[in-house]
């Protein structure tokens, strides 16, 4: 199992490299010009300099390599620096000749200057992936936006699973009963109604007509006491409901199918023949075996729900990473788009890996060689 996991981890490196190259080339081949918004009065030679400042002057392979280094080498170091207060993502560079004496003194006092054979050198930060739109490091913005997405999407996923599992179990146990028929119908609806329709629909019903819930998610709201917690709870209900409807529909269908497969097996008859109570037969014997494929489906669904959350974030104005991607796209902010899309890809690869490993761990019949 461990060998298998390690092999898959190693194999995921070329996969990720290929995906990053594909996304990079897609953005590269696209005809959009980041200088399109610059006024026409700016002279062409200045424009050329601005282009170089954005790193656009170099050939494509060099820029791809630089982005790779920044994303895979510099950014993790910045994270470590931030966590442990180290100085990994810093390097020495020659002091510019025109630096003022006072600044030089201050830097020397702070211990940022050292003397080498080539002259004075000072400690500067490594180049990170910079957003063209905000001129700040892309990862800083992503880290700011990530909690909102994880909070809403994560809650929705958990709620969806918690609703889906009992529905799936009971539907399968009472196959073709009224509960099963209506459950199947409702999951089919959840499967078919897109989030950009359920979102506005729920807003019209619960926020406009009934006035029970807010329609916009207030992301700067901080939970400090019971009142603010209640507000946070209320504002999360609508986006979570929209996202959870889809999760519920998918997972309960899988749960039902998986339970049905297992309920007709011989070991269930054996368990009943031994005189075990019905609750033990269904909830222990059948459920544990039925959960194996469902758990992998749950793991596989995680990245998809992050992608699908883009629409929900736009509807409820949650400023998470999906909304960040949309705004970056419209602003032609290619480094941001590249990094975000790649983060989505990393998530897919990681959760695929988790699903496969989980399958092997849970099901003793599966042995990866």
């Amino acid at each position, binding site marked *: 199992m461990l060998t298998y996991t390690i092999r898959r981890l190693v194999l995921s490196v070329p*996969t990720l490299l*290929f*995906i990053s190259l*594909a*996304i990079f080339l*897609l*953005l590269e081949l*696209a*005809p*959009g010009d980041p200088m399109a918004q610059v006024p026409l009065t700016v002279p062409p030679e200045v424009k050329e300099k601005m282009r170089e400042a954005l790193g656009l002057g170099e050939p494509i392979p060099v820029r791809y390599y630089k982005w790779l280094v920044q994303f895979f080498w510099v950014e993790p170091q910045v994270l470590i620096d931030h966590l442990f207060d180290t100085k990994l993502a810093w390097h020495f560079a020659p002091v510019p000749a025109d630096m003022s004496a006072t600044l030089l003194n201050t830097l020397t006092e702070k211990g940022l200057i050292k003397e080498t054979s080539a002259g004075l050198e000072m400690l500067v930060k490594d180049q990170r992936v910079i957003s063209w739109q905000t001129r700040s490091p892309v990862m800083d913005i992503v880290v700011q936006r990530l909690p909102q997405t994880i909070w809403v999407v994560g809650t929705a996923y958990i709620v969806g699973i918690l609703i889906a599992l009992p529905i799936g179990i009971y539907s399968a146990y009472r196959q073709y009963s009224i509960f099963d028929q209506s459950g199947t119908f409702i999951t*089919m*609806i959840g*499967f*078919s*109604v*897109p989030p*950009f*329709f359920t979102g*506005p*629909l729920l*807003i*019209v019903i619960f926020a*406009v007509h009934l006035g029970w819930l807010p329609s916009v998610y207030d992301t700067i709201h901080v939970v400090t006491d019971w009142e603010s917690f209640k507000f946070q709870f209320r504002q999360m209900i609508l986006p979570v409901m929209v996202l959870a409807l889809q999760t519920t529909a998918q997972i309960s269908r899988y749960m039902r199918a998986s339970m049905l497969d297992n309920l007709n097996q011989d070991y269930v008859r054996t368990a009943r023949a031994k005189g075990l109570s019905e609750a033990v037969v269904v909830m222990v014997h059948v459920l544990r075996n039925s959960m194996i494929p469902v758990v992998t489906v749950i793991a596989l669904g995680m*990245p998809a729900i992050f*992608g*699908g959350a*883009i*629409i929900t974030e*736009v*509807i409820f104005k949650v400023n998470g990473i999906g909304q960040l*991607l*949309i705004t970056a*796209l*419209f602003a032609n902010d290619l480094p941001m*788009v590249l990094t*975000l*899309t790649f983060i*989505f*890809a990393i*998530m*897919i*690869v990681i959760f*695929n890996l988790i699903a496969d490993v989980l399958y092997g761990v849970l099901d003793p019949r599966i042995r990866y060689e």
Partner: protein
Amino acid sequence: MTELSNPVPQGKSTSQMQDVWGQFRKHKGAMLGAGFLAFITLAVLFGPYVWTLDPQRIDYRARDLRPIYMALFDASAKVSWAHPFGTDQLGRDGVSNMLAGGRASMAVGWAAMLLTMLIGTSIGVIAGFFRRLDGPLMRLTDLFLSLPILPLLLVAVTLFRQPLSSNFGPEGGMFILIVGIIGITSWMPTARIVRGDVLALKEREFVLAARSIGTTNRNLITRHILPNVLSPILVSATLGLATAIITESALSFLGVGFPSDFPTWGKMLADAVPRMENFPERVLLPGLAISLTVLAVNYMGDGLRDALDPRIRGR
């Protein structure tokens, strides 16, 4: 041992297609779904010839009309029999817009589904039939499966909109772009299913027999393999149609779809959201149209899967 009283089965013999149809007819949801899909398709195809109002005609005096059923709840609602679904803020007719929007959505859905099936089936058949190509093609499928689809769709549509619309016109360019991109990013499940079936079929005796009388690979595939993998292709085609319609509407909703004067259901829904407090029907009508169409297609797929599965059929 007793003789069978009646060794020869009585009753009419039925062909496979008749069996499939008989099973399909038993699935009520599937029949309703198929009926609704046929209705919508016919409506968007021939509706504009019956309801001849131009969807783009601006009639400012008849703007903001409510749909006709509002008169039941609210006697003071502004309604008119000339516009049963009401009009929008520029006085464009609701019915003809729904029909035109449905035309665009269904056209994109069908075209993207056909393209998906074409790519998926060819890759699946080639990977299953030619052992040497199996490995590389399946790795390619895995790679495509790990691409983040919706973000990539957004990226591609935003970035390539300009050159395509200058070459093929704003509507034509967008149509080609959306259909092409949905096709390129959603063929993988079909390819996997088809490959699995082809791998199993290849070892069967009838393929050996066909090969032994000198059938070429091409004929083997078109005459013997393809007809036998038709049922999984049909089932994934229904799923593909549903996904394509939803994807197109999602793109239009996010504002990266067709140009603003070209109605599609997703676009109408997105345009109506800012004023949905006063005019909820403008969100409701296109939203219901999308949802019901997708629901119908999904139910049809369910019924088709049951009907085409010989283990379920005949029970």
